[in-house]
């Protein structure tokens, strides 16, 4: 008897005190850890209109051990709309995760579908719902800006201890940049369940429970109506529109066409739609052209050459050059323009001369050494305008564009083996130059501000806090504000004087200042480019428009820019102009040509 007693005591000591596995098993079967997911911060436009909000959705969770082996799988599959094969696969996946712990069987079922499922769920022990939220986009716009969210992958879980399997994280756009602010804090509820898996109350009276802390809302700088309008104008086109408020650097709209409905990248069909968008669409709608597409600047770069030349005193506004078409071709009927007229007529030989003076300033005997010094000097001024440098906006993946430096040409041609004559294409915005649409809008902003800019950005307020410090810092260019007057007058003339290249950008009530650009392509039609700001006296909006493979800058980009300006400043638009743009189709036309 004593022996039995001692054996029992030893055994009890072993299973109760030494071996922890029973404790774990008990917790696994009697406690259910319900994660209370915080609602993600809502995203508003600058006027408080909704851009992205949350909608209730449910994850169907499963505990494989509790699943009835004799359950009616056919009915179940019909109920949640999956096939038998998918059922088997999902079940296997759940089992391989854990037999006793719950894992998601089917994710992000919208609330309306869930209602039907939850009614019948009592028939299927082992299955229960976990409340989640889904992003919804009421106006279906700004997909490129807002980005999307997706489930965390193993790398992200390893990197940041906050994340757990099944969490969602911002994958791109503002969702990614402001992930930490938007996500909030998870809460947890520890429930006791009985052998039938029905809830029996809070464990330890809820001492271990915590409430979720909702994410902070974002107020963006976008103007929702303008964004909607711009996306509409860009239908059936490739390209982008960027509109900035010059005084603050706030981005009013950022459009990349073709775009996509952000609602597609949400919920159950996200993966399917994503593949569809990436693989099956040659136009690459997920590619954000406004910050990732690098184009040559074209004629618009003449504005940069002008102010840099004025600042370096290699010309004055009164300097005239003959329109010598033997060195570089030109168009129009001018012959001997001053600076303003040269800008107005986009005179190529004029800017050939200007650039020559900038590159070969006569500092050195050798034109090669002189050009090297000149290029570095010129580059310093150009980059101060936000070109060739990364604008630290709040979207990741933004491109720097390219302003060549000495090193670049040295490696290309060899040190002192190149001079102005080698690189003269840069004078009119061709050559090795590269810019992104956002930089061009920012350039319009710099001109409107006469020499400074705020880094373009998309978020005005984070919860109750103001925008980030870096967006409140004024960036001064190296150009004196006085040098901009002549350029601004020229831009006014481009739009408003008879014979200007951008007459289509004219708005009766507002003085629009703008410059066309045409980026030449060898095989396809040229890109139509236009930058503008308005009103001239007190600039409220600066715009850049790129319409790929559509032709001359004044034909398509200019009217689009003017419609954007008109919409933003007056709320009304020129219907005839608008109609012409809406009907233009450079995508399907293109396809027909190829076929």
């Amino acid at each position, binding site marked *: 008897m004593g022996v039995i007693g001692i054996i*029992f005591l030893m*055994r009890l000591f072993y299973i*109760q005190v030494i071996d922890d596995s029973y404790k774990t098993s008990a917790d696994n*079967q009697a*406690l259910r850890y319900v994660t209370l997911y915080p609602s993600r911060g809502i995203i508003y436009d600058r006027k408080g209109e909704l851009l992205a909000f949350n909608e209730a959705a449910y994850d169907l969770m499963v505990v494989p051990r509790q699943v009835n082996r004799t359950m009616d799988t056919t009915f179940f599959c019909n109920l949640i709309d999956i096939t038998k094969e998918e059922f088997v696969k999902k079940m296997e996946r759940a089992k391989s995760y854990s037999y006793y712990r719950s894992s998601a069987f089917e994710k992000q079922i919208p609330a309306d579908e869930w209602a039907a499922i939850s009614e019948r769920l009592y028939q299927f022990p082992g299955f229960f719902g976990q409340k989640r939220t889904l992003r919804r986009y009421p106006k279906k716009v700004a997909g490129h800006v807002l980005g999307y969210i997706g489930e965390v992958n193993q790398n992200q879980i390893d990197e940041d201890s906050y994340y757990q399997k099944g969490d969602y994280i911002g994958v791109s756009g503002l969702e990614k940049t402001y992930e930490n602010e938007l996500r909030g804090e998870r809460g947890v509820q520890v429930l006791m*369940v009985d*052998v039938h898996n029905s809830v*029996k109350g809070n*464990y330890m009276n809820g001492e271990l429970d915590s409430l979720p802390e909702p994410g902070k809302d974002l107020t963006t700088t976008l103007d929702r109506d303008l964004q909607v309008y711009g996306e509409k104008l860009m239908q059936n086109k490739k390209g982008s529109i960027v509109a900035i408020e010059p005084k603050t650097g706030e981005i009013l709209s950022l459009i990349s066409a073709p775009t996509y409905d952000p609602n597609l990248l949400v919920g159950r069909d996200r993966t399917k739609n994503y593949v569809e968008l990436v693989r099956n669409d040659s136009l690459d709608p997920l590619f954000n052209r406004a910050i990732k597409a690098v184009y040559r600047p074209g004629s618009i770069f003449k504005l940069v050459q002008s102010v840099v030349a004025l600042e370096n005193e290699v010309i004055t506004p009164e300097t005239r050059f003959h329109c010598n078409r033997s060195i570089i071709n030109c168009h129009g009927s001018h012959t001997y323009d001053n600076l303003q007229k040269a800008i107005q007529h986009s005179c190529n030989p004029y800017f050939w001369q200007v650039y020559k003076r900038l590159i070969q300033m006569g500092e050195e005997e050798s034109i090669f050494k002189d050009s090297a010094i000149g290029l570095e000097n010129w580059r310093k001024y150009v980059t101060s305008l936000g070109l060739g440098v990364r604008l630290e906006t709040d979207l990741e993946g933004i491109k720097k564009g390219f302003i060549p430096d000495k090193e670049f040409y040295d490696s290309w041609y060899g040190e002192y083996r190149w001079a102005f004559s080698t690189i003269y294409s840069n004078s009119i915005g061709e050559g090795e130059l590269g810019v992104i649409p956002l930089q061009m809008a920012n350039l319009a902003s710099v001109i409107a501000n006469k020499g400074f800019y705020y880094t373009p950005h998309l978020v005005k307020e984070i919860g109750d806090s103001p925008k980030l410090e870096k967006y409140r810092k004024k960036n001064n260019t190296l150009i004196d504000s006085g040098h901009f007057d002549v350029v601004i007058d020229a831009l006014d003339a481009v739009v408003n004087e008879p014979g200007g290249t951008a007459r289509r950008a004219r708005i009766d009530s507002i003085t629009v200042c703008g410059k066309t650009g045409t980026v030449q392509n060898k095989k396809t039609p040229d890109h139509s480019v236009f930058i503008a700001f308005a009103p001239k006296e007190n600039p409220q909006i600066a715009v850049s428009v790129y319409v790929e493979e559509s032709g001359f800058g004044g034909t398509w980009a200019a009217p689009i820019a003017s419609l954007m300006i008109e919409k933003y400043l007056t709320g009304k638009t020129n219907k005839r102009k608008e109609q012409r743009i809406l009907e233009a189709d450079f995508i399907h036309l293109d396809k027909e040509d190829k076929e």
Partner: protein
Amino acid sequence: MRGRRTKNITENIDWLLISIYAVMVLLGWLNIYAANYTDEAGTIFDFSQNYGKQLMWIGTSAALAIVVMLLDVRFYETFAYVFYGIFVALLVAVLLIGTEIKGSQSWIVIGGISIQPAEFAKYGTALALAKYLSSISVKMEHFKTRFMSAAILLVPAALILLQPDAGSTLVYASFIFVLYREGLSGKVLVVGVAAAVLFILTLFVEREMWNIETLDLTISGEYILMGAIFILVGLVLLLFRKNASSLWRPLVLLAVVAVGYVASVNYIFNEIFEDRHRNRIYELLGIISDPSGTGYNQHQSKIAIGSGGFWGKGYLEGTQTKFNFVPEQSTDFIFCTVGEEWGFVGTSIIIVLFLGLFIRIIWIAERQRSTFARVYAYSVVCIFFFHFAINVGMTIGLAPVIGIPLPFFSYGGSSLWSFTILLFTLIKLDAERRNVLR
């Protein structure tokens, strides 16, 4: 005269035993409440629930105990065979008119009260065995004595097996220790243990198939075991060559008996036992493992006890028992509630309490002047011990799942009444020991 006797009784009552009894019954009641506790549960006095009913059983048991104490001590010895006869008759009756609950016909329902004759039959058997062994003509060396003792035990055991209630039947095996104390040869015990070992060995090997490829032969495990027995005997004979002439006869006989036993175990196990019995034994021996099927009860039971830790989860805080993960948690698996809510501290107190009870009863048995009282005391301790060992062993995975209650703890009127009567008859006999003439 009357006054003197009464005084004598109270003086001689073993209050320690009564105290242990009272503590156990009280703890049992509290644990039954815990096992059935839910947030909506009423007070512990709710008579519609197990715990309320148990209080009723405790009350009636107390009344029974008083009755047992007040009856004349000679009553038990005198009417021992009568009791035995009545209970055997009830065991026959239950087979004819009993109600079947959970696959065994072991209940007699009379006017809303159901009783389990098997619980009381142990009492009758203990009394009858004590009465028989205390007769003057009895000597354990005699075949007749052994035969009669066996008959007293086997008749109720066989009747209970027919219900079928294998658990209660097995309790009768514990009487072998009583017989040993009364002079049964130790060899019988040795044979018993050897039989048990061989039984388990057979079960281990009988499912194995042995392939002898060179001979293109597949042999079932039990034949290997039989062969091994013969080889072993041969080896022993070889080692003790000098005495071979005197040894070979008994050894060969032993081998033949052993082989026959293995064959019959194999037969009985596979042909007579039911699947559930087989599986429970396989599960215990670790031959098969199926925590969600056959082994579910025991698996859950171990989880409940194991999760209690050193200090336990606290009274009414056990999740495994409260939320019905453990089946039968207020009857056969009541020990789980103790283990989960009171931890190792609680379980060791209970085990020490039981060991104390057993030691006290053995000590009391040895101070009896009459053989009747001594045999009876040993019977009581054997019954209690067997229940305790199998029940607790089952909950912690050391014994097969045999549905027998833990004395004084498990819920149930019949078992509490029968354990109370068993114990208090002993206390009564002990209190009157001085009045017994040798």
